[in-house]
Protein backbone atom coordinates (compact mmCIF):
# COMPACT_ATOMS: atom_id res chain seq x y z
CA UNK A 1 0.00 0.00 0.00
CA UNK A 2 2.76 2.45 1.02
CA UNK A 3 4.66 1.42 -2.10
CA UNK A 4 1.64 2.09 -4.31
CA UNK A 5 0.97 5.53 -2.83
CA UNK A 6 4.62 6.52 -3.17
CA UNK A 7 4.78 5.01 -6.67
CA UNK A 8 1.78 7.12 -7.71
CA UNK A 9 3.24 10.24 -6.10
CA UNK A 10 6.71 9.85 -7.63
CA UNK A 11 5.38 9.25 -11.15
CA UNK A 12 2.75 11.98 -10.85
CA UNK A 13 5.27 14.61 -9.67
CA UNK A 14 7.88 13.64 -12.26
CA UNK A 15 5.27 13.72 -15.00
CA UNK A 16 3.95 17.10 -13.86
CA UNK A 17 7.44 18.62 -14.00
CA UNK A 18 8.24 17.20 -17.44
CA UNK A 19 4.73 18.04 -18.64
CA UNK A 20 5.17 21.70 -17.70
CA UNK A 21 8.41 21.80 -19.72
CA UNK A 22 6.76 20.10 -22.69
CA UNK A 23 3.79 22.53 -22.58
CA UNK A 24 6.22 25.47 -22.86
CA UNK A 25 7.71 24.00 -26.07
CA UNK A 26 4.33 23.07 -27.59
CA UNK A 27 2.87 26.50 -26.80
CA UNK A 28 5.84 28.21 -28.46
CA UNK A 29 5.46 26.00 -31.55
CA UNK A 30 1.68 26.48 -31.68
CA UNK A 31 1.92 30.27 -31.48
CA UNK A 32 4.72 30.64 -34.05
CA UNK A 33 4.24 27.70 -36.45
CA UNK A 34 0.55 26.80 -36.08
CA UNK A 35 -1.38 24.49 -33.79
CA UNK A 36 -1.81 21.75 -36.38
CA UNK A 37 1.90 20.98 -36.57
CA UNK A 38 2.28 21.39 -32.78
CA UNK A 39 -0.52 18.92 -31.96
CA UNK A 40 0.61 16.44 -34.63
CA UNK A 41 4.08 16.44 -33.05
CA UNK A 42 2.52 15.85 -29.62
CA UNK A 43 0.38 12.97 -30.92
CA UNK A 44 3.23 11.14 -32.67
CA UNK A 45 5.53 11.57 -29.66
CA UNK A 46 2.86 10.16 -27.32
CA UNK A 47 2.48 7.10 -29.60
CA UNK A 48 6.26 6.48 -29.47
CA UNK A 49 6.30 6.90 -25.68
CA UNK A 50 3.35 4.52 -25.27
CA UNK A 51 5.17 1.93 -27.39
CA UNK A 52 8.31 2.39 -25.24
CA UNK A 53 6.35 1.67 -22.04
CA UNK A 54 4.34 -1.17 -23.63
CA UNK A 55 7.49 -2.97 -24.82
CA UNK A 56 9.91 -2.29 -21.96
CA UNK A 57 7.42 -2.66 -19.08
CA UNK A 58 6.53 -6.33 -19.66
CA UNK A 59 10.14 -7.13 -20.65
CA UNK A 60 11.43 -5.86 -17.31
CA UNK A 61 8.63 -7.57 -15.38
CA UNK A 62 9.76 -10.90 -16.84
CA UNK A 63 13.16 -10.63 -15.07
CA UNK A 64 13.72 -12.52 -11.77
CA UNK A 65 12.74 -10.20 -8.90
CA UNK A 66 16.24 -9.80 -7.42
CA UNK A 67 17.82 -9.05 -10.81
CA UNK A 68 14.98 -6.61 -11.55
CA UNK A 69 15.46 -4.83 -8.20
CA UNK A 70 19.24 -4.65 -8.66
CA UNK A 71 18.92 -3.22 -12.19
CA UNK A 72 16.04 -0.86 -11.37
CA UNK A 73 17.62 0.17 -8.06
CA UNK A 74 20.89 0.98 -9.82
CA UNK A 75 19.20 2.92 -12.63
CA UNK A 76 17.00 4.86 -10.21
CA UNK A 77 20.02 5.70 -8.07
CA UNK A 78 22.04 7.01 -11.02
CA UNK A 79 19.04 8.87 -12.42
CA UNK A 80 17.75 10.15 -9.06
CA UNK A 81 21.16 11.34 -7.89
CA UNK A 82 21.55 13.38 -11.08
CA UNK A 83 18.16 15.05 -10.44
CA UNK A 84 19.07 15.63 -6.80
CA UNK A 85 22.52 16.97 -7.65
CA UNK A 86 21.01 19.58 -10.01
CA UNK A 87 18.29 20.44 -7.47
CA UNK A 88 20.89 21.01 -4.71
CA UNK A 89 23.02 23.20 -7.00
CA UNK A 90 19.90 25.19 -8.00
CA UNK A 91 18.67 25.59 -4.43
CA UNK A 92 22.09 26.84 -3.29
CA UNK A 93 22.58 29.33 -6.13
CA UNK A 94 25.32 27.47 -8.03
CA UNK A 95 23.00 26.73 -10.95
CA UNK A 96 20.32 28.99 -12.43
CA UNK A 97 16.75 28.20 -11.41
CA UNK A 98 14.52 26.76 -14.10
CA UNK A 99 12.48 29.70 -15.43
CA UNK A 100 9.65 28.72 -17.80
CA UNK A 101 8.90 32.34 -18.81
CA UNK A 102 12.52 32.94 -19.86
CA UNK A 103 12.67 29.59 -21.70
CA UNK A 104 9.37 30.40 -23.45
CA UNK A 105 10.63 33.82 -24.60
CA UNK A 106 13.82 32.20 -25.91
CA UNK A 107 11.87 29.45 -27.73
CA UNK A 108 9.55 32.02 -29.35
CA UNK A 109 12.51 34.10 -30.57
CA UNK A 110 14.26 31.02 -32.01
CA UNK A 111 11.10 29.70 -33.69
CA UNK A 112 10.18 33.09 -35.22
CA UNK A 113 13.57 33.13 -36.96
CA UNK A 114 12.48 30.11 -39.05
CA UNK A 115 10.00 30.69 -41.95
CA UNK A 116 6.57 29.06 -41.55
CA UNK A 117 5.07 26.74 -44.17
CA UNK A 118 1.52 28.04 -44.63
CA UNK A 119 -0.06 24.90 -46.17
CA UNK A 120 -0.32 21.49 -44.50
CA UNK A 121 1.79 20.54 -41.53
CA UNK A 122 4.80 22.76 -40.96
CA UNK A 123 7.77 20.32 -40.82
CA UNK A 124 9.89 22.49 -38.52
CA UNK A 125 7.05 23.06 -36.06
CA UNK A 126 6.21 19.36 -36.10
CA UNK A 127 9.83 18.35 -35.44
CA UNK A 128 10.34 20.78 -32.56
CA UNK A 129 7.05 19.76 -30.94
CA UNK A 130 7.73 16.04 -31.48
CA UNK A 131 11.28 16.17 -30.13
CA UNK A 132 10.28 18.35 -27.18
CA UNK A 133 7.50 16.04 -26.03
CA UNK A 134 9.54 12.90 -26.75
CA UNK A 135 12.61 14.03 -24.82
CA UNK A 136 10.65 15.39 -21.85
CA UNK A 137 8.42 12.30 -21.93
CA UNK A 138 11.29 9.80 -22.05
CA UNK A 139 12.29 10.59 -18.48
CA UNK A 140 8.71 10.02 -17.36
CA UNK A 141 8.42 6.81 -19.42
CA UNK A 142 11.65 5.61 -17.80
CA UNK A 143 10.26 6.31 -14.32
CA UNK A 144 6.91 4.68 -15.22
CA UNK A 145 8.67 1.54 -16.47
CA UNK A 146 11.16 1.20 -13.60
CA UNK A 147 8.74 1.97 -10.76
CA UNK A 148 5.83 0.12 -12.35
CA UNK A 149 7.74 -3.05 -13.23
CA UNK A 150 9.41 -3.27 -9.84
CA UNK A 151 6.06 -2.98 -8.10
CA UNK A 152 4.47 -5.25 -10.72
CA UNK A 153 2.00 -2.44 -11.21
CA UNK A 154 2.80 -0.72 -14.52
CA UNK A 155 -0.93 0.21 -14.95
CA UNK A 156 -0.89 2.29 -11.73
CA UNK A 157 2.26 4.09 -12.91
CA UNK A 158 0.61 4.75 -16.30
CA UNK A 159 -2.53 6.10 -14.55
CA UNK A 160 -0.36 8.46 -12.44
CA UNK A 161 1.42 9.67 -15.58
CA UNK A 162 -1.86 10.15 -17.48
CA UNK A 163 -3.43 12.04 -14.54
CA UNK A 164 -0.48 14.44 -14.52
CA UNK A 165 -0.53 14.86 -18.33
CA UNK A 166 -4.27 15.60 -18.34
CA UNK A 167 -3.89 18.10 -15.49
CA UNK A 168 -0.97 19.89 -17.15
CA UNK A 169 -2.61 19.96 -20.60
CA UNK A 170 -5.86 21.39 -19.16
CA UNK A 171 -3.90 24.00 -17.18
CA UNK A 172 -1.77 24.87 -20.23
CA UNK A 173 -4.81 25.15 -22.53
CA UNK A 174 -6.64 27.32 -19.99
CA UNK A 175 -3.69 29.60 -19.25
CA UNK A 176 -2.42 29.69 -22.87
CA UNK A 177 0.99 30.66 -21.56
CA UNK A 178 3.84 28.81 -19.81
CA UNK A 179 2.88 27.29 -16.46
CA UNK A 180 5.46 29.31 -14.57
CA UNK A 181 3.31 29.30 -11.40
CA UNK A 182 4.03 25.58 -10.93
CA UNK A 183 6.84 25.29 -8.34
CA UNK A 184 8.96 23.34 -10.80
CA UNK A 185 12.27 23.58 -8.94
CA UNK A 186 10.69 22.29 -5.72
CA UNK A 187 8.95 19.45 -7.58
CA UNK A 188 12.22 18.44 -9.23
CA UNK A 189 13.85 18.38 -5.80
CA UNK A 190 11.05 16.16 -4.45
CA UNK A 191 11.31 13.77 -7.40
CA UNK A 192 15.09 13.54 -6.97
CA UNK A 193 14.63 12.64 -3.29
CA UNK A 194 12.03 9.95 -4.08
CA UNK A 195 13.95 8.36 -6.97
CA UNK A 196 17.13 8.22 -4.87
CA UNK A 197 15.34 6.78 -1.81
CA UNK A 198 13.61 4.05 -3.82
CA UNK A 199 16.89 3.37 -5.61
CA UNK A 200 18.59 2.78 -2.24
CA UNK A 201 15.75 0.53 -1.06
CA UNK A 202 15.42 -1.64 -4.16
CA UNK A 203 19.16 -1.66 -4.89
CA UNK A 204 19.88 -3.09 -1.43
CA UNK A 205 17.17 -5.74 -1.76
CA UNK A 206 18.39 -6.61 -5.27
CA UNK A 207 21.93 -7.05 -3.93
CA UNK A 208 20.59 -9.67 -1.52
CA UNK A 209 20.23 -7.47 1.57
CA UNK A 210 17.17 -6.83 3.69
CA UNK A 211 15.90 -3.76 5.55
CA UNK A 212 15.29 -3.53 9.27
CA UNK A 213 11.52 -2.95 9.47
CA UNK A 214 11.12 -3.97 5.80
CA UNK A 215 8.73 -1.51 4.03
CA UNK A 216 8.79 0.80 7.05
CA UNK A 217 12.37 1.64 6.01
CA UNK A 218 11.10 3.58 2.96
CA UNK A 219 9.86 6.71 4.82
CA UNK A 220 13.06 6.61 6.89
CA UNK A 221 15.13 6.52 3.70
CA UNK A 222 13.14 9.43 2.23
CA UNK A 223 13.81 11.43 5.41
CA UNK A 224 17.49 10.45 5.29
CA UNK A 225 17.88 11.54 1.65
CA UNK A 226 15.96 14.76 2.25
CA UNK A 227 17.97 15.71 5.35
CA UNK A 228 21.29 14.85 3.67
CA UNK A 229 20.42 17.01 0.67
CA UNK A 230 19.13 19.89 2.83
CA UNK A 231 22.38 19.76 4.81
CA UNK A 232 24.34 20.03 1.55
CA UNK A 233 22.15 22.94 0.38
CA UNK A 234 22.89 24.73 3.64
CA UNK A 235 26.67 24.20 3.30
CA UNK A 236 26.66 25.29 -0.35
CA UNK A 237 24.53 28.38 0.35
CA UNK A 238 27.10 29.55 2.88
CA UNK A 239 29.84 28.89 0.37
CA UNK A 240 27.93 30.78 -2.34
CA UNK A 241 27.45 33.76 -0.01
CA UNK A 242 31.17 33.75 0.85
CA UNK A 243 32.11 33.65 -2.84
CA UNK A 244 29.68 36.49 -3.61
CA UNK A 245 31.07 38.59 -0.74
CA UNK A 246 34.65 37.93 -1.87
CA UNK A 247 33.67 38.83 -5.45
CA UNK A 248 32.06 42.12 -4.43
CA UNK A 249 35.09 43.02 -2.25
CA UNK A 250 37.42 42.33 -5.18
CA UNK A 251 35.23 44.45 -7.52
CA UNK A 252 34.80 47.36 -5.07
CA UNK A 253 36.68 50.60 -5.90
CA UNK A 254 39.61 51.32 -3.57
Amino acid at each position, binding site marked *: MTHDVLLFLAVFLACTVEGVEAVTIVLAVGITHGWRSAWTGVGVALIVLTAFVAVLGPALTALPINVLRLVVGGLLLVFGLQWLRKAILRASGFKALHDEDAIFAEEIADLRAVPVQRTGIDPFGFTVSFKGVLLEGLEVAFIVVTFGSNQHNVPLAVIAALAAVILVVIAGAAAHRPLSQVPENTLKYAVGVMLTSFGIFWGTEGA*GGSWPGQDAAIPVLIAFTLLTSLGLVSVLRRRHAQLAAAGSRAGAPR
Partner: protein
Amino acid sequence: MSRLRAFVAFLYEFIVGDDPMIAVVVVIALGLAAALADGGTAVWWVLPLAVASVLAWSVLRASRR
Protein backbone atom coordinates in the same frame (compact mmCIF):
# COMPACT_ATOMS: atom_id res chain seq x y z
CA MET B 1 27.56 5.71 -37.97
CA SER B 2 27.13 9.30 -36.85
CA ARG B 3 23.50 8.53 -35.96
CA LEU B 4 24.60 5.56 -33.85
CA ARG B 5 27.19 7.74 -32.18
CA ALA B 6 24.58 10.42 -31.55
CA PHE B 7 22.22 7.81 -30.06
CA VAL B 8 24.93 6.45 -27.75
CA ALA B 9 25.82 10.03 -26.73
CA PHE B 10 22.14 10.69 -26.03
CA LEU B 11 21.81 7.52 -23.92
CA TYR B 12 24.95 8.43 -21.98
CA GLU B 13 23.69 11.95 -21.35
CA PHE B 14 20.21 10.64 -20.48
CA ILE B 15 21.31 8.06 -17.91
CA VAL B 16 24.74 9.13 -16.68
CA GLY B 17 24.31 12.92 -17.00
CA ASP B 18 26.75 15.57 -15.82
CA ASP B 19 28.85 13.57 -13.37
CA PRO B 20 29.95 10.06 -14.43
CA MET B 21 31.50 9.48 -10.99
CA ILE B 22 27.98 9.08 -9.57
CA ALA B 23 27.32 6.11 -11.88
CA VAL B 24 30.74 4.61 -11.06
CA VAL B 25 30.16 4.84 -7.28
CA VAL B 26 26.63 3.41 -7.59
CA VAL B 27 27.92 0.38 -9.52
CA ILE B 28 30.78 -0.18 -7.03
CA ALA B 29 28.42 0.19 -4.03
CA LEU B 30 25.91 -2.28 -5.50
CA GLY B 31 28.73 -4.77 -6.18
CA LEU B 32 30.09 -4.34 -2.65
CA ALA B 33 26.61 -4.78 -1.13
CA ALA B 34 26.06 -7.96 -3.19
CA ALA B 35 29.46 -9.38 -2.16
CA LEU B 36 28.92 -8.62 1.55
CA ALA B 37 25.33 -9.95 1.48
CA ASP B 38 26.63 -13.15 -0.12
CA GLY B 39 28.93 -13.59 2.88
CA GLY B 40 26.02 -13.15 5.29
CA THR B 41 26.81 -9.58 6.41
CA ALA B 42 24.01 -7.03 6.94
CA VAL B 43 24.29 -4.54 4.04
CA TRP B 44 21.47 -2.02 4.59
CA TRP B 45 24.03 0.69 5.45
CA VAL B 46 26.12 0.38 2.24
CA LEU B 47 23.95 2.31 -0.22
CA PRO B 48 22.89 5.13 2.14
CA LEU B 49 26.57 5.69 2.97
CA ALA B 50 27.58 5.60 -0.70
CA VAL B 51 24.75 7.96 -1.71
CA ALA B 52 25.52 10.54 0.98
CA SER B 53 29.26 10.42 0.19
CA VAL B 54 29.05 10.65 -3.59
CA LEU B 55 26.35 13.33 -3.49
CA ALA B 56 28.40 15.49 -1.11
CA TRP B 57 31.55 14.94 -3.16
CA SER B 58 29.79 15.73 -6.44
CA VAL B 59 28.05 18.97 -5.38
CA LEU B 60 31.09 20.26 -3.48
CA ARG B 61 33.24 19.63 -6.53
CA ALA B 62 30.69 21.39 -8.77
CA SER B 63 30.68 24.38 -6.42
CA ARG B 64 34.47 24.75 -6.75
CA ARG B 65 34.42 24.99 -10.54
